[in-house]
């Protein structure tokens, strides 16, 4: 199942589980400004190990399902830029029904399908962690607000890896 609850904070997502791995899948395009926030996070978390495994899928998340299934995670978190009408850099857990059926690009598999297959194949819950972008225009580098949010997630992930 794809999971979200009102009681869970995104910070709780990376707490060590009693048994098993938390699989973090980052998604995005480094050449579409703030859409690159996912890959930025994957790149800046030092030596993911222990209970957290990070895989950057870039703009091809459909190619990473097998790898996720091999890891047999007890939880998966998909990190991506998401326009939920928040303030730039706001971090929010996105409910499944809020993920649009349409695709960022028509030539990419819909993330909602990737998440459903990921949930079915791993038999574990999948969470969407969205970061509100400021711009998705062509260009490299993150807006300051999005960089700040990315840094916060990187700090959180890095700290949890040390546990």
């Amino acid at each position: 199942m794809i999971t979200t609850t009102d009681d869970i904070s995104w910070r709780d997502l990376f707490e060590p589980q009693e048994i098993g791995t938390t699989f973090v899948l980052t998604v995005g395009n480094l050449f579409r400004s703030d859409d690159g926030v996912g890959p930025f996070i994957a790149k800046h978390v030092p030596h993911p190990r222990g209970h957290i495994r990070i895989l950057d899928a870039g703009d091809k998340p459909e190619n990473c399902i097998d790898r996720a299934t091999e890891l047999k995670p007890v939880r998966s978190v998909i990190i991506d830029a998401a326009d939920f009408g928040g303030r730039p850099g706001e971090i929010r857990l996105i409910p499944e029904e809020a993920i649009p059926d349409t695709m960022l690009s028509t030539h990419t598999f819909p993330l909602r399908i990737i998440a459903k297959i990921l949930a079915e194949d791993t038999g574990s819950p999948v969470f969407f962690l969205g970061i509100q972008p400021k711009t998705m225009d062509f260009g490299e580098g993150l807006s300051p607000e999005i960089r700040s949010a990315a840094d916060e997630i990187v700090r959180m992930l890095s700290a949890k890896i040390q546990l």
Partner: protein
Amino acid sequence: MMNKRNVQINVEYLTRVEGHGNIVIDVKEGTLQTCRLDVVESPRFFEGILRGRSVFEAQHITSRICGICACGHTLASIQAAEDALGITPTAQTLKLRKLLLHLEFLDSHILHIYLLVAPDLLGVKSFVPLIDTHGKVVRRALRLKKTCNDLCDILVGRHVHPISAVVGGFTKLPSEKDLETMLNMLVGMRPDMEATVELIAALKFPEFERDTEYVGLVSDDGEYPLLTGDLASTDGVRKSKSEYRSITNEFTVPHSSAKHTKLSRESYAVGSLARFNLNYEKLHPKAKELARALGMQPKCINPYLNTAAQLIESIHCLEDAIAIVEGLQQDGIAHDEVMLVGLNEQGRIPVKAGNGVGAVEVPRGVLFHNYEIDGQGVIKNANCIIPTNQNLNNIEHDMEKLVPEILLKDDEQITLALEMLVRAYDPCISCSTHFLDVRFVNR
């Protein structure tokens, strides 16, 4: 009377096309007043970006025009550069390039068939609900697409935006193990492709016909021409690729930021259906067998059947890709052909001023790149004409004929028919300049 009504329909942000455009329809008292496909994307100025850059890096820049036709842009770019430099690629290089193109055709066609067209034919709004109702179909699409991506990774070093395909050849050639892996993966796609054929053969495409001119590559050899040959049309035109401007005859229209094209008639079409109509006899026997089973023969003038032509081409590409890999295994790879050229800092490739044209069939039709370079291999001028640009005018003329034929339908049905028509062309409006809205103005 129903057909004397006024019709005003606006469909904004038409989904399942790549990029941003609007369809505007205005019917007054049963008479079509306005019928436009507005392309409202900003130009992307790739030709401007190329100016002043080395022709040896052009393929890496132009690959970024499109995430799905990245290999096609790469190959058209390399072909234009080689034409300007006077380089003739080796037979092995041509085989590997053709293999790369087959992988891109398979990837692109499979995605269009499953993600963009199948929802219409299965009566759902998008591909996503199919995960609950047609789980096997979704997983099959995913599996096929992933295989194409992985094959591309093996052949040219990346899932998209090839890195090893360069002017003069390849910086890395496949090992024997790579060939064996690719062959197993390609052969492994056959059952999924057979299931795809079964799925699509059971679906009903809309009935609509408009005779138009179809344009694509033709050749005098036995090969289904994708990389080599002349430009030709179903109206009897045949010209060298160097004369591409007199094929496209580009012109501007006020409602589109993408240029339109025409040849012998008011419009022409490129893409799978054009290739099918021009080169049917050269398709792989299995592809021709499928065409017969689908009841298709040239000249097919139902634009909705471009999707069926894509399926036929997919079978051709898969079988020809298998044959290419088997041939390479049999002949062995000549690894001394590895081409480490970079920006040609070592002067490995002799450089001269020149003007070169690349004409390559890519999933949506024939693609042109034209570079003028100086004596140092620096691009002075560049021109890229992509397939979607060439189809926009033809889509508008299709709509002009279609709308009066379906005026008795309700607005929702008319809108769906128009959306499906545009989607059938698999337009990549992002490449031509990005999304689609349909607007009707009272019938």
